[in-house]
């Protein structure tokens, strides 16, 4: 199923090899920041690879651009803004929490709240009903049989 990265490789079969030693910065702090930033930026021409892993020439250009901005003294956010300004929010692997993307980020928590609400309401109702009725004798024998098995 991980029919892997085939297309990406076929499309961009080039001699490059993700992050190249010659691209890397000598300052380990800056280089670490560059790596972290690159891992959240999507290669614009590949199928879902970040620019840090990608073999595409454009990813190499972007990696170098990211490092140039860092050396020039940009903050991480400024570097990301710089890339987004040129390639659009498509290159962000983690959509910013703004506009319609709120829905994406809140989908999980909202569903959990709804689920808890429904579960609590149902259990309460049932518990109250059960308190009123209690278990019938037939239920008790059935239960005993089931537990025995």
């Amino acid at each position, binding site marked *: 199923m991980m029919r892997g990265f085939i297309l990406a490789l076929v499309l961009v079969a080039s001699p490059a090899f993700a992050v190249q030693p010659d691209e890397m910065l000598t300052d380990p702090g800056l280089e670490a920041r560059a790596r972290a930033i690159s891992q959240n930026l999507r290669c614009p021409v590949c199928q879902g690879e970040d620019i840090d892993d990608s073999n595409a020439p454009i990813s190499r250009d972007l990696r170098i651009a990211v490092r140039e901005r860092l050396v020039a003294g940009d903050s991480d956010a400024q570097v990301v803004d710089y890339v987004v300004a040129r390639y659009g929010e498509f290159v962000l692997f983690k959509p910013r929490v703004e506009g319609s993307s709120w829905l994406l980020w809140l*989908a*999980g928590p909202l569903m959990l709240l709804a689920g808890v609400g429904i579960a609590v309401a149902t259990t309460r109702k049932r518990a109250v009903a059960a308190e009123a009725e209690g278990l019938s004798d037939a239920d008790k024998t059935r239960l005993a049989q089931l537990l025995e098995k």
Partner: protein
Amino acid sequence: MIIEFGHFTLVLAFMVALVQSTLPLWGAYRRDARLMAVADPAAVVQFLLIGASFAALTYGFVTSDFSLKLVVENSHTAKPLLYKFAGVWGNHEGSLLLWVLILAAFGACAVWFGGNLPERLKARVLAVQGSIGVAFMAFMLLTSNPFVRLENPPMNGHDLNPLLQDPGLAFHPPFLYLGYVGLSMSFSFAIAALLEGRVDAAWGRWVRPWTLAAWIFLTIGIAMGSWWAYYELGWGGFWFWDPVENASFMPWLISAALLHSAIVVEKRESLKAWTVLLAILAFGFSLTGTFIVRSGVITSVHAFANDPARGVFILGILGFFMGGALLLFAFRASVLEAKGVFAMVSRETALVANNLLLAVSAFVVFTGTIWPLIAELVFARKLSVGPPFFDAAFTPFMVALAIILPVGAMLPWKRAEIRRAIRPLRGALVLALAVGLLVYAVQTGKSALGPVGAALGAWVVMGAAIDLWQRLGRGSVGDRLSRLTRLPRADLGKFFAHSGMGVTIFAVAAMTAWVTEDIRTVKIGETFALGSYDVTLAAVNKVEGPNYHSLMADMIVRKGGVQVASLHPEKRMYPVAGMPTTEAAIDQGVFRDLYLVVGDAQDDGGYAVRSYIKPFANWIWGGALLMALGGILSLTDRRFRVAAGARRSEVVAVAAE
């Protein structure tokens, strides 16, 4: 001739499936035993026919019959025999044939092992199973026929994609399909129950083994895929949150929820409607996965075939089965009256919480996977959703699940006292916190990931162990251990599955948090330091493989002057497919993997080399295997094996109602 025979048996199987999906259903409705009796032989015959068809296609691949279009596109005479076999399902059409073969196999198994099923329920289950077969065989015969011949056969084929020529991947798809398709059984049982208007403890007991089996296969399949990605796809990533990976993960999450809620149906006759809904959704996510892989609607590196006609067809199948099932559910769910009541604090509530967290996390994965599509269609925004999103949005639910797991697993049914239930776990809690703090103190970078993962892992594993210990009753250590063999297998299964989950949580956190990476240019003969190891690039040689050329490095790893390993990472070129691949060399260890990758020659005569120390890498898949082992133990539990006895008492119970 053999190929035509295979084609013919596939058409026959389609006809048989048509009969299987209609007559028994009508018979069950009319209570006509003769019509219902058609289901059994039909299911077996359908399986045999598809089996013959599959054998014919395999014959075509093994003998390199290049008059078959599929063989030309996916095989080559020089390809090793194993991959000639694996090539049968390493493509869209052949994998679909495997899909329907497994579907029919599950139908036949329901006949062989379902002797104790009530006649009407079995007829309905097999009919629904048959209708899924009809849909997929129609899809094959109309849009994706594997038996298409070429008028002018070429001298040789295009070879199988080199990345797929790997023993790990050869068996990865069959396992995954066994899982996907296994969920069709739970689905068929859910639909049959809705038609019947009855879900009881016996139903829960019949559904659970099928769900368990499907879940075990999914667990193994996903673990194999992840392991393959780890050593084959470059830099040792084990999970990419790719749409196709997500497609296999969503059914896994839902079926994990389903096999827990089926326990509640079986033991307490509660959560019936919810369990039926989960069974429908689990197969729904399987179909969604099929759609994602084969339609090309969602861009994925894994995408199989990007043919719009196929996408529309699968969407039709998905719409028919999910739309129909959910409609039926809406009308009939109210009939499924819950019997067992439970208090706010009880095992039932804990399992509801487990179900909520698993279902919501599957929903988060689903939303993230299709969000780019929604954003473009509805909001006209072109955006991406990748690993950083899933890491942030999915992980909290798993953390919550791990926190409540040991407590929930020990709560008594129906009504519990939280304080009394927690008392035996105090030791585990203290130990887990101590482990977390210790790890935090020892590790160099002060990130929270490692300590939290270690604490959670310890909490879950210790919790599972204490639960097992309590089940062994009172008395001395010897007394308790002597009772170990007499414990129901399901209890042992629970222990292994839950501790496997703890191990995987710990390993994922540990490997992500503590990986050591080194990227540099190395000249031949040069030595560099990697953590506490010294790595020497001794030589780089040209090597010829059966169907590839290789540039193989000879690298020596030493620790304190003593040789630890001699590793041979490769860069291969497959000339027929025109594709390069990197083959990492891994020295596997219990506590760490050494992972070396060699790249291209650089201008200065050196080679680009990537090296990693990946701590606790194998624990990720070890944990998954523990989970699968737990599933297998539960599957062999006495109450599933002595089905005949279950039937007899069930008849009595039904009569008493």
